């Protein structure tokens, strides 16, 4: 297209959602530029042309001019009506999900995006989609407000607790697009990133079948996958480095000092309690920021996680 303000926008990878937005973006920019130059150049021209010659300069009494004032009120008004209508229709388009859209569930929580597919497949911070198909993401939050934003698709919506919201898009090329969280959600807000990974339709089918039913394998393998899918590693490292929470490395069977001065041995019950009710026992030197997992994780899954944690030395 090659429009004047193309340099400002990221690549357009979902024309069905992005095109109306981009068209209006360019229109407002170009119209504004014309008006802006008009105002600024007039101002500068007057400043030079009517520079003060002496302190006794006489100026004419011009109090108003109805024609002029009506003109410069009505023309901008009409322009803004156009902008409103254009923006409104583009927004309706963003809200109206095509009937044949493929649904994927997305859950935001501090500070990860967890993604669930129709056949039980699960991913974390990766949204796998087929190209050329409208995709509807049904989203909710487990804790505070988040907001799901893909610049290359021009879509964004807040993600709320106790309510579902959605966005839709249709990626036309295989590849990756960046996802941001744009509603401030705490310490690692700026690390709450994800990728939309667009596959060829047949590749997507294969991928989906391979991941059917969620984690599988031995308890340790399942535990490892769960730790990754639940986003535990955002705050708890497995290599001993210190993040927002204590590292998982080598904790099994050791004593741990708590914030209230007491200490506790890291065993099955401590881990179970720390997952379900993290506020009960706070490790010394850390804040109480973890979201409780009560009601979100089964006992079997906790057992698998415990088996995995035992192996991290």
């Amino acid at each position, binding site marked *: 297209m090659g429009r004047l303000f193309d340099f400002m926008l990221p690549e357009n990878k979902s024309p069905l959602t992005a095109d109306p937005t981009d068209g209006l973006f360019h229109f407002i920019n170009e119209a504004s530029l014309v*008006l802006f130059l008009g*105002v600024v150049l007039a101002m500068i021209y007057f400043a030079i042309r*009517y520079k003060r010659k002496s302190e006794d300069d006489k100026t004419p009494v011009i109090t108003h001019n109805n024609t002029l004032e009506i003109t410069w009120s009505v023309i901008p008004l009409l322009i803004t009506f156009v902008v*409103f209508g254009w923006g409104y229709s*583009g927004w309706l388009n963003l809200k109206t999900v095509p009937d044949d859209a493929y649904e994927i569930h997305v859950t935001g929580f501090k500070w990860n995006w967890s993604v669930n597919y129709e056949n039980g497949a699960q991913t974390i911070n990766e949204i796998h989609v087929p190209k050329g198909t409208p995709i509807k993401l049904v989203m909710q939050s487990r804790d505070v407000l988040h907001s799901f934003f893909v610049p290359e698709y021009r879509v964004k919506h*807040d993600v709320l607790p106790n309510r579902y919201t959605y966005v839709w898009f249709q990626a036309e090329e295989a590849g990756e697009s960046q996802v941001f969280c744009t509603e401030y959600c705490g310490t690692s807000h700026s690390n709450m990133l994800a990728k939309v990974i667009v596959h060829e339709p047949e590749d997507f089918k294969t991928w989906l079948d391979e991941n059917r039913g969620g984690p599988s394998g031995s308890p340790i393998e399942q535990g490892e996958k769960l730790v990754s899918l639940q986003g535990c590693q955002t705050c708890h490292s497995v290599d001993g480095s210190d993040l927002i929470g204590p590292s998982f490395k080598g904790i099994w069977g050791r004593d741990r000092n708590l914030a209230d001065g007491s200490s506790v041995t890291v065993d099955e019950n401590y881990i179970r309690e720390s997952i379900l009710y993290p506020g009960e026992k706070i490790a010394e030197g850390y804040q109480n920021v973890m979201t409780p997992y009560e009601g979100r994780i089964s006992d079997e899954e906790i057992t698998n996680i415990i088996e995995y944690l035992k192996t991290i030395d």
Partner: protein
Amino acid sequence: MANASTSASSAASTPMKLKVKQFQPAQTPTNTYLTDEKGVWAWLTTVDHKKIGLMYLGSVAFFFALAGFLAIALRTELWTPAKTFIEADTYNQLFTLHGAMMVFFVLVPSIPAALGNFILPMQLGAKDVAFPRLNLASFYIYVFGAIFTFLSLANNGFDTGWTFYTPYSSDTNSAGIIWVTLGVFILGFSSILTGTNFITTIHKLRAPGISWERLPLNVWALYATSIIQVLATPVLAITILLLAMENILDIGIFDPALGGDPVLYQHFFWFYSHPAVYIMIVPGFGIISEVITTFSKKTIFGYWAIALSSLAIAFIGFLVWGHHMFTSGQSAVATTIFSFLTFLVGIPTGIKIFNWVATLYRGSISMKTPMLYVFIFIFLFSIGGFTGIMLGALSVDIHLHDTYYVVAHFHYVMMGGTLIALLAGLHYWWPKMTGKMYNEPLAKIAAGFIFIGFNVTFLPQFIMGAQGMPRRYYNYIDQFTPFHQTSTIGSYILALGFLIILYYLAHSLFKGKKAGPNPWNSRGLEWQSTSPPDFHNFSHTPVVIHGPYDYHQPMEEFQLGLAVEHGHGEEHLAADTTGSKAAEATIA
């Protein structure tokens, strides 16, 4: 003398003959408000609107320096995509503090409470605001609000962003939030009292002859601002009180975990906070109108258009809060209406800009520093306005919401608008307030630094915002690095500009040339007093027979006052009307 004896209508009564005489303000006054009472205690307990204005000005400058320093720290941290020198939690607290301080401690009180307090009664020819003790109380309430905010810092601080969105603000880190919400709650009262005071003053304390059509546009702007302050701030107070209760008692109105609704909080919050942006910007419009007429020596173009558009902005401004929530999950109907009304509020703003530019036409334009700031204002504020239209457009806002585009937009409006207008006003009235002139060449150089620094800081933010860079990010992805680094360099240039201003204003206080009563040859009533003014502003009760921008009328006719020394008002007026012979006899 053209109008030796003249009829002037006082606020509430029918036209009557007044005994008037010409008063020329002394070049070097012997007794001013600065010499009238002395000592720290006299300052701290003064009820003089001029001193209270200066105390506000000092506090606002202090908080601006503090919050500006935080901004420099934030920009420095953003030099690299990962950690540069501070931790994520510190960064989050700093941007919250930067926003909260700039909004509540700098922008809201800056023009009305500091410059407005000083200038408004003088432009009305009044001796003080209607409730001087309330005025002092509002200053101390402001100080208390500030103390509570600092107490919050001592109690874990707060990292919610200045918007305090629930449930983040009701779930985490309670102690700091409780202190700061109480601080903002208290601060609200300061704003309410100032607004109440100004409305009453404008209605009841106008000097003889100042009818509504002779009100300076600065007064109109402050009037519109005060109406917003009185109508909007109590809603903030109750919102913030409910938020505090949410933290103390978990009453559950806004917290989804207890059955409440976070979107309801956003509605409550923006019902105040959108009108609040007009509390910040509308007084700036007033200053621009004053300065542009003085330095073009010309009647304002479209007096009523400018005066009424301030009121229009004040009222429509109450109906557009939902445009902060297009992506939040509010209802579709609400979203549509809010978007539509948002454009309507853009129109009166545009009209003002056109009127100001038209005022320049065939004027006698002198590019002194205040005028230079007016030009900078029109340049920057127009960009802020156009990008506001962009953000009001529904589909485009979905893409731009909560990105750096929004950050750049409100900095262009708030800093490029309000703060630049404040600088224009500060330079314009500096000689009146202090009786001293500042260093003009240095002032122009500083204005240049600020203009360039500002654009280098914030123009790249439009681009990276449109590219997708979200706001309130401690880390960012590599592709944004060049934009962030340019922006950071710009912020240093900007800071340098402010340091220069600090230097020459301080210098002017001690070594500045004497200014004389009216260095700009303005027709404004506030300039018909000595510099610095008398304790009672004027040595006489002024009588006004012309509009404030009647540059085609001779200066002498703006220097009229009641012939009775230190006239106390309507009893005198009634007495004076008895014989027009006496009135004629007393004219100098």
